[in-house]
């Protein structure tokens, strides 16, 4: 199976998971939104990072809204992970196609797919474990954690920029 097939299948699957989940609970407008995002990404997003970014972000937001609307977490989690994989492969494909020559193509693809698979599996497993943990805290604790996450993410962004 080629990277292109994987990427296209990933976009279609992520959109399909969200469409089915939303139709099942009768949220047709959200299902239509998922269909539009997936369709646009598939039709126009190839090689266009902005469209691909909008498609990816849109599907993640729909998955997040889905969790808020009491849809199965595992289902939404799978949709988000598949969208992430599709977004990554779409970019990887664009990068390799931009080069007139791809040196060590097999090694490049093997390393990339191995790492991506590890991240996807670990992400799902970690999410399942995290989903089974029940932590309760009040508003103050939540605000403190929010502040902490703000600093943590700021340091991540600074690290990325460096």
């Amino acid at each position, binding site marked *: 199976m080629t990277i292109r097939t994987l990427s296209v299948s990933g976009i279609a699957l992520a959109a399909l998971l969200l469409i089915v989940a939303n139709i099942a609970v009768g949220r047709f407008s959200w299902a239509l939104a998922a269909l539009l995002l997936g369709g646009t990404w598939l039709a126009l997003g190839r090689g266009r*990072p902005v469209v691909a970014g909008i498609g990816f972000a849109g599907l993640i937001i729909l998955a997040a809204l889905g969790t808020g609307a009491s849809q199965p977490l595992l289902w939404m989690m799978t949709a988000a992970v598949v969208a992430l994989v599709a977004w990554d492969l779409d970019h990887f494909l664009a990068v390799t196609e931009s080069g007139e*020559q791809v040196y060590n193509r097999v090694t490049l693809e093997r390393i990339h797919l191995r790492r991506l698979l590890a991240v996807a599996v670990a992400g799902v497993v970690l999410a399942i474990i995290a989903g089974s943990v029940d932590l309760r805290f009040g508003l103050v604790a939540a605000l403190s954690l929010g502040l902490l996450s703000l600093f943590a993410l700021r340091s991540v*962004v600074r690290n990325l920029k460096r």
Partner: protein
Amino acid sequence: MSRSLLLVLLIYGLVLAGLITLRGELLVLALPLLLYLGASLVYRPSAVHLSVDRRLDASRVIEGQPVRVTLSITNLGAPLENLQIGEVIPSGLRVIEGETRVVGALGADEGVELAYTVAGPRGLYGFSDVRVSAGDTFDLQTEQIVERSGGRVFVLPQVEKLSRAMIRPRRTRIFAGLVPARRGGPGVEFFGVREYQSGDSRRWINQRVSARFSGEIYVNEFEQERAVDIGLILDARHSANVLGGDHSLFEKSVQATATLADAFLTGGNRVGLFIYGGSVSWTYPGYGKVQRERILQALARARIQQSPVFEGLDLLPARLFPIRSQLVMVSPLRVDDACDLIRLRARGYRVLLVAPDPVDAEVRLLEGRKGVEVAARIARLERAHLNRRLAQAGVRVLEWRTEVPFQVGVGGVLAQLPLWERGPGR
């Protein structure tokens, strides 16, 4: 928006939304994205240390000839999982074949090679930069580097071979050449008769003249042929070269100058080049192949220049050229330039003007438009008048219709001296 920023925004949005709404599912949803970001941080490339070497199969080519460029990149540091290399092609050159961008994974001490062929118009092209982008596997964090590796190529103007270029300045040099020197001595052309001197060959004895004078023998004398000083002047003024619609005669002028330089240097003469139009570009006079190369390289760099100071030819530094030497000006010429050329002639220079015909070129550009024929007739009359004025002042004018090759259009006329320049006394 970069991919990493989008990812960070999504993670932050999910975490913040989860904390505000006190819903753990949103936090859970952020975990795979966080892992993805974390993996890119873990696998980001360490210090990039590359060796770049660029090789060109020729440092000088004639216009239209291709140049093969080979770019070798070797990784001297740790393995790089995601490397993107892009060659920066100098503006003006076009890639005919081959690859200028490579993407791949490069192990330690491993190298990759890019080979491509370029061609371009006349000019000097310098290669310098190679853009390298090294990133993590997921391409979230990339380090942009510009590696430098020099290399330059001269694309020289095309040179046509002229069978002969006849000139006859008043001053010659002491070295043997092909230009008649107005002096008796060893040569080919008959120059005069003189009394026999000891050592003269018997074959030179002029029987008819000797028969007229009893007791005295006369021998034929030949005209010496020597090298001369030639100053080539290329007119690079915008106002003289550019026609309507940004079409230019300059390339033709450059081609003609290159051909003339080649012909004069082949004849053993000392040739210098001055490009007139803006900044001073002076190639000091010299002989032979090295000088030919210098002149061609100067012509390769020549560009049309626009300067209000050098609008006329009055600032032409004639003192650069030896007095009474031959000046060869290549210029489409403007009507008001005649006086300056006549002034040069008055100072004792032999002046030859090779003029790519601007009227003919413009007519071809405007072909089919209303009134062009009448306008062309008027312009040709004006041009003929200008040429006649110059000819009357002793300036030799060769008009070149640029649609025909220089050798065909001018070569034939240039191969023989005009009648008024022939003869030993002229």
